[in-house]
């Protein structure tokens, strides 16, 4: 009798688990679905009351309108350049520094590492005005370099890769050193290849946050041809105040590149973010 009721309550739990997971999934997916459906409706249909769910007439001009009102080609390139160089800088410089902090002995190590830790705790807004003024002073606003600028080095990346190197036994490096590798070769040929998972995680972390960044691109590049997808979208919002079908089409254009990458590297994305988590 008792086991019977236990089994019953377990089955109830399973049903409830699926119920909540599926209901939650619907809530998570619905806004995306609504974005797609709205982008396929004419302006008139989008403002019908009550709203139609599927478009009565599939209307593709919204995509054309979004493409003609924003230079999406340039936005893709600018965003791509910004993400690419921020990722490269984060990997190269953070690997070097992370390795030195984890495995090498040198004077000033603790003080310098404290600099890294303190920066990690600071919100980026505290740097924005002076960073902008530095660029403005040398006439480098409205450029690709300006988009990359705050991401030239990464305190978080340095900390994160230091942790990765800490996890590698020092004996491996010492053996390479005894085999005749110099310090650089030991790092580059032996130790660096062992941090692949962490580098992948850092890549994803850096790319996702650079892509989402809004304030910096908005401040530093006001020329529409120099904007990123995020800041461009903010401009589109100003142009098409209430023409939501066009805004939805533009949002879809802005989301597509990262969504495609996510569909392909879904596991790496989630596990990478879980690994870098806590930042």
């Amino acid at each position, binding site marked *: 009798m008792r086991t019977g009721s236990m089994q019953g*309550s377990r089955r109830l739990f399973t049903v409830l688990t699926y119920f909540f997971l599926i209901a939650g999934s619907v809530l998570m997916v619905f806004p995306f679905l609504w974005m797609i459906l709205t982008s396929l409706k004419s302006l008139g249909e989008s403002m019908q009351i009550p709203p139609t769910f599927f478009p009565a007439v599939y209307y593709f001009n919204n995509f054309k309108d979004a493409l003609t009102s924003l230079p999406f080609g340039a936005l893709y390139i600018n965003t791509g350049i910004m993400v690419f160089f921020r990722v490269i800088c984060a990997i190269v410089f953070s690997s070097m520094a992370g390795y030195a902090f984890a495995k090498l002995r040198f004077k000033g190590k603790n003080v310098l590492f404290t600099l890294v830790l303190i920066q990690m705790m600071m919100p980026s807004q505290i740097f924005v*005005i002076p960073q902008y003024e530095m660029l403005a002073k040398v006439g480098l606003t409205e450029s690709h370099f300006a988009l990359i600028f705050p991401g030239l080095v990464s305190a978080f990346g340095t900390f994160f890769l230091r942790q990765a190197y800490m996890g590698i036994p020092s004996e491996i490096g010492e053996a390479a050193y005894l085999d005749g590798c110099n310090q650089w070769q030991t*790092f580059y040929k032996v130790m660096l290849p062992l941090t692949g998972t962490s580098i992948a995680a850092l890549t994803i972390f850096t790319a996702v946050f650079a892509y989402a960044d809004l304030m910096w691109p908005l401040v530093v590049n006001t020329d529409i041809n120099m904007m990123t997808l995020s800041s461009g979208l903010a401009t589109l919002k100003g142009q098409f105040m209430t023409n939501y079908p066009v805004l939805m089409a533009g949002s879809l254009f802005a989301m597509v590149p990262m969504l495609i990458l996510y569909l392909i590297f879904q596991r790496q994305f989630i596990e990478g973010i879980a690994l870098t988590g806590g930042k």
Partner: protein
Amino acid sequence: MSKQKTMVAKQEQRWAWLMVAPTIIGLLVLNYYPLIQTFLLSFSKTKTFGAVEFNGIQNYIDMFQMPEFWKATWNTILFCILTVPVGIALALLVAILLNAKVRFKGGFRAIYFLPMVCAPAAIAMVWRWMFNGEYGIINSILGVNINWLTNPSTAILACAIVAIWSSIGYDAVLLLSGLQNISKSYYEAAHLDGAGPIRQFFSITLPMISPTLFVTLIMRMMASLKVYDLIYMMIDQSNPVIPNVQSLMYLFYREAFVAGNKGFASAIVIWTILLIGIVTVVQFIGQKKWVNYDV
């Protein structure tokens, strides 16, 4: 021998300095110099042509006398209160459900994580449309007629809902990795002792997950105290509801880059950092009461 050893140590040191140099120089130029500049700017007045002049604590006096500033501080705290507890609780629920034996676990996880890979700018756009007072789908579904984004009492709630929706997946993934570290044997033992699922949650799951929960909580609080992009995209600068939703960082942006009061804006940033610092310290003191490290 010992001479050779010091040679080696010296060489190691030289390599180390070379390897940390780009990062350290970068941090000094990109972060530490700006940090000092922002601090100094907060005690200065911005004049025409970008010149600045020291004016003591005038910016802070002005700030503390500005009702809009206090309102923004309250909005920021309110946003934090509205988003963090509910968001974390829902994320924990999702994590626990995903940790159960379910099919399509990977698929569910991917769906909940989806907002993380979409720029907040794009996400805000569709939510603005769904919250639209005249044609929005949310009003149609709920059968109500609320001007979510132009009504002073609902605008911040709408922003909070979007923030929670955006962050659940990310937080759930972090919490899930914590849950997966809990040994199954605890649950088996509890099961043999006749403890039901609710009891198991409070005596096993919650204490065991508390360190991860604490990290997630701290991170989420810091992020919500710095909120800017979401509100910027949800609420237009011309929307009269602005004073009732703008966060400190939104006010900062408007003062620094729209109004051009860089000194005053710097004072707002310093204040925000103090606020984040205080909240974080309180959290770290409070954690002793509920976070369980001796596992």
